[in-house]
């Protein structure tokens, strides 16, 4: 390039500077021209003087530049130190705390009733006197405590259906004082208590099912009978009534030994789950439509028909949904599985 040869010496320097000045002037003129076009267009379109109104308004909304005041002239912390008189309790409250105080004072906010109830509850616990609680909705929001549970029994008639269910369950626990303070000593429970405990626990978790049939909706009664015949032999007892609530005594397996002759626990190493599944599948072709294979996927028990006889007196539930076992057998089963 020609320019590379030009060093920045004296006269050339000025020449260069003159050139640069020329270029710069051109750029400035371009900018001016741009501005003129913009202004001219604004004038002709009529929006050039839009920000200028009459003199009075101009003075009124002039920008204020004083200390302690914003640009509109307003003082921003004017109400900080003021105090207001509450119309309810006639106290002088600071302005910033006025709204929350009114909420509590008039009893109209979200938290005011809750706090009032809690305060009354604690007062009741101290003084043991019945008080008139107006708002039942917040009762469930309180932390569960022994005192609240005891009092909850009195309010059964006033509560909604949902609450009545939970209270019913709480009433069932009363025979052996089910509360968080004492805890449950499992060893000291008798067999009847354990059965009812397990019943209520399982029915508590499956809340809806406890008041309906416990039958699995995916299978029919014929399938169930077929399984029962298969597992228990031809002398299988009849299925219990579908409408009755699950009663513990229907689950005493009549023939534990016969059952064990057909089943085998997983802890025998020579049996693999696939073998047992295939062997059972061949047996299944005799006519039972109920795929026991599915059960082996879910349960850790591998079932085979080798015919080995275990002399352990273990009782096994035939159906998954009825895990109720007699109390002495619980510990034995868990020992074996471990």
């Amino acid at each position, binding site marked *: 390039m020609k320019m590379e040869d030009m060093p920045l010496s004296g006269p050339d320097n000025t020449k260069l500077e003159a*050139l640069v000045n020329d270029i710069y002037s051109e750029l400035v003129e371009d*900018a*001016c021209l741009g501005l003129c*076009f913009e202004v001219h267009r604004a004038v002709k379109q009529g929006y050039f003087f839009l920000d200028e109104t009459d003199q009075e308004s101009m003075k009124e909304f002039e920008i204020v530049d004083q200390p302690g005041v914003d640009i509109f002239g307003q003082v921003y912390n004017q109400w900080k130190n003021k105090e207001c008189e509450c119309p309810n309790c006639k106290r002088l409250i600071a302005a910033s705390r006025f709204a929350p105080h009114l909420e509590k004072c008039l009893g109209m906010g979200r938290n005011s009733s809750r706090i009032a109830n809690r305060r009354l509850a604690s007062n009741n616990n101290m003084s043991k006197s019945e008080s008139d609680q107006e708002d039942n909705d917040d009762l469930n929001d309180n932390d569960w405590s022994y005192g609240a549970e005891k009092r909850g029994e009195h309010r059964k008639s006033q509560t909604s259906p949902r609450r009545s269910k939970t209270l019913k369950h709480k009433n069932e626990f009363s025979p052996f004082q089910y509360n968080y303070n004492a805890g449950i000593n499992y060893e000291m429970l008798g067999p009847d208590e354990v059965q009812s405990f397990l019943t209520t626990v399982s029915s508590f978790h499956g809340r809806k099912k406890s008041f309906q049939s416990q039958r699995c909706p995916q299978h029919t009664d014929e399938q169930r009978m077929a399984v029962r015949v298969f597992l228990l032999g031809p002398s299988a007892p009849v299925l219990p009534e579908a409408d009755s609530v699950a009663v513990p005594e229907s689950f005493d397996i009549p023939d534990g030994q016969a059952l064990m002759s057909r089943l085998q626990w997983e802890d025998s190493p020579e049996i693999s789950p696939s073998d047992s599944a295939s062997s059972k599948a061949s047996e299944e072709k005799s006519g039972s439509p109920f795929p026991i294979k599915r059960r082996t996927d879910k349960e850790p028990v591998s079932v085979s028909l080798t015919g080995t006889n275990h002399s352990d007196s273990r009782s096994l539930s035939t159906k998954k949904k009825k895990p109720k076992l007699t109390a002495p057998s619980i510990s034995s089963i868990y020992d074996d599985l471990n």
Partner: protein
Amino acid sequence: MSKDYQMKAAINQKLIEMGERERLKELLRAKLVESGWKDQLKAHCKDVIREKGLEHVTVEDLVTEVTPKGRGTARRQQVVGTGQKSSCPCSKTEKINLVVQ
């Protein structure tokens, strides 16, 4: 002198080709707005318009009135703004030197 004229033309052409001229133009515009030169000039425009009457203002009027003032104030603004002693913004001189070389 034609040599200078040629040189100037060559420089201009080079600048345009490389896109530097556009960049410099935008840079200048930004600086002028920042310094408040544009608002000053706009206020001057308002006076001119009020003088001449709103309806009959033409572009030429504005240009002839506004450009000399603009040119002069721009130079002064730039000198004051950058704090340089030369009469033209030295940063631009350097940039043009870089471009040229």
